[in-house]
């Protein structure tokens, strides 16, 4: 089996053979030519890896954004450390970096909970800042301000004042 090479957050890795199986081992070569043998056990929420000096476990969630790009949230178990918004730029190439630039052209804001729209604070074609309140929604007995996740322009408003909405219903589209 041929080796695969890639970059994860600026760290270059070369797997000498393609890792396979939920519980197995493989060799990985680092940039400075150090060769590390790792064993692993993949479980329902992440992976445990045996390194030469420690066995570390991670919870890993894939979160697919509106542009069908998968962002990873990595949390180290038994620790407060976590790494959000990690993504592979090209599948197989393993080029991971924090995805801040060039992401999300169009975002559909969806309701996280069923509730009622109390107020719509923006209009179509209006430019909005990141964090700017867009609408007020009543849910779980509280009035909640829904704010813009990005800076952009409101291109579509899919709800009306006083309308009752279900969880997951589209609210606004921002470009």
């Amino acid at each position, binding site marked *: 089996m041929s080796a695969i090479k890639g970059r994860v957050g600026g760290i270059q890795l070369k797997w000498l053979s393609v890792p396979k199986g939920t519980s197995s081992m493989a060799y990985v070569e680092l940039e400075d030519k150090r060769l590390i043998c790792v064993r692993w056990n993949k479980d329902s929420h992440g992976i445990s*890896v045996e390194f030469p000096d420690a066995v570390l476990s991670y919870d890993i969630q894939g979160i697919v954004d509106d542009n069908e790009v998968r962002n990873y949230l990595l949390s180290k178990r038994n620790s407060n450390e976590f790494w959000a918004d990690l993504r592979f730029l090209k599948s197989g190439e393993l080029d991971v970096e924090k995805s801040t630039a060039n992401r999300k052209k169009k975002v559909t804001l969806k309701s996280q909970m069923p509730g009622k729209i109390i107020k719509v604070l923006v209009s179509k074609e209006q430019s909005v800042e990141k964090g700017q309140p867009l609408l007020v929604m009543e849910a779980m007995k509280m009035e909640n301000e829904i704010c813009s996740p990005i800076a952009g322009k409101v291109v579509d408003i899919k709800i009306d004042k006083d309308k009752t909405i279900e969880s997951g219903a589209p609210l606004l589209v921002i470009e």
Partner: protein
Amino acid sequence: MKAKKVLIANRGEIAIRIARTCKLLGFKTVAVFSNADRTSDHVKMCDEAVWVGDSQPKESYLDYKKIIEAAKRVNVHYIHPGYGFLSESAEFVRACNEAKITFIGPSAENIDLMGDKIRARETVDTIGVPRVPGSKGVLTSPEEVKKIAEDVGYPVLLKAKAGGGGKGMRLVESEKEISSSFDAAKREAEGAFGDSSLYIEKFIVNPHHVEIQVFGDGNGNAIHLGERECSIQRRHQKIWEESPAPVLRKFSDTKQKMCDAAVKIASKISYAGAGTVEFIVDESGSFYFLEMNTRLQVEHPVTEWVTGVDLVAWQIQLADKKFTLPNKVDFRGHAIEVRLYAEDPERFLPAAGPIGLIDIPCGPFIRWDSSYRQSGEVSVFYDPMIAKLSVWGQSRDEALSRMRVALDELRIEPPLNSKGDKVGGLKTNLTFLRELIKNNNVIKGETTTNLIQKNPDLTTQNNYKLTEKEAIALSLYEILSETNTEEKRNNSLTRWGVTGLQERILR
């Protein structure tokens, strides 16, 4: 003799917590449940369970007629209301009395008096307990708000007469905010409590929230079980509670005065059972009466840790007429509780959804109050609290360290689909709580109710530096996930083929 029955008119963690004590005292337990709670843990925990209605609280847990009907049908002797829902409804207590069922809690008169925050103020005024200046009665118009606000000075706080838990509460910092805040608070109060009456108070800058746990025998005797500081709040709701109160370390006679005042109030009204007198303490150690909660509080485990008293056991024994109030309780060490919510850790908006996995922290002096064990679903119909995690230590420092380790050990993950992607909308405030425990103000005990606004870094999610270990783990996970889906596809095809073939051979 047949064991007596207690109906628990609540859901979630508190229903489970009450059921545990009922069982250890030898009582049979009856759960009530709504459509959304058919398979919830509190239902499975009790000896019997009665369906009481639709998922909306007002169709089930808030409908006292349905609860009484259920209680009569299964012949219960007692009803424990827990906190929230009907716990502070005098109407419900009267209905219990009429049905010859003992309500585990204070009398309807106690609830009427203290639940009506305006009459409560009049009562404490006669005892001479200081309180925050504000409106005398219910407000009828924004103009009235303006008049009083100018009298006591901005900022002022609009509050629901029937309120609690921050619902129907609005901070008004200047005149121009009055009308919109008045309307919003009214709507919230109407929606949450069915009563839109509002009142107003002067807002104390840099306040500490300290409350005294009291317990009365209903005959005019009462004692205190120390204080809890619940200053760390978000959206006017408590998120962290501890005892003893860090703020009172500097003001030891304030503490004594507050405990005395609380006991005086409870004695004066012949209070029965567990109650909490809430105060605001300002930077100079002055204290003001806020309100008395005539129920068991969410944060009661903190008091149970430092006193060794099972408050629910006391409540039940009092109702069962098998209780003698001690002269005082002894205090030991320091306890801290944090509330874990299904909400985003930056803006604290509710983010309910299914839970794929919970891994509960263990170890000495750690307590987990929750209705979730390994998995479940945070329902959109109810409060999005997932759990209360509390710890005890001989000192505050020890309790802090223990909480830090427990929070690091805790895992709450959403379910993942076959591609490893998150299913549902669950987010939790766990990363926020982990930041909170490392915050300097928190460590030093300088915890004012505006701590979160004053520390914006608490709500900014910073990534840690990615090391080669994480790089290896993630690349491994990604490669395995890709090959895994391929293999599964191939495997499942093969299996189908083989099974089909075998069947044909057997025929």
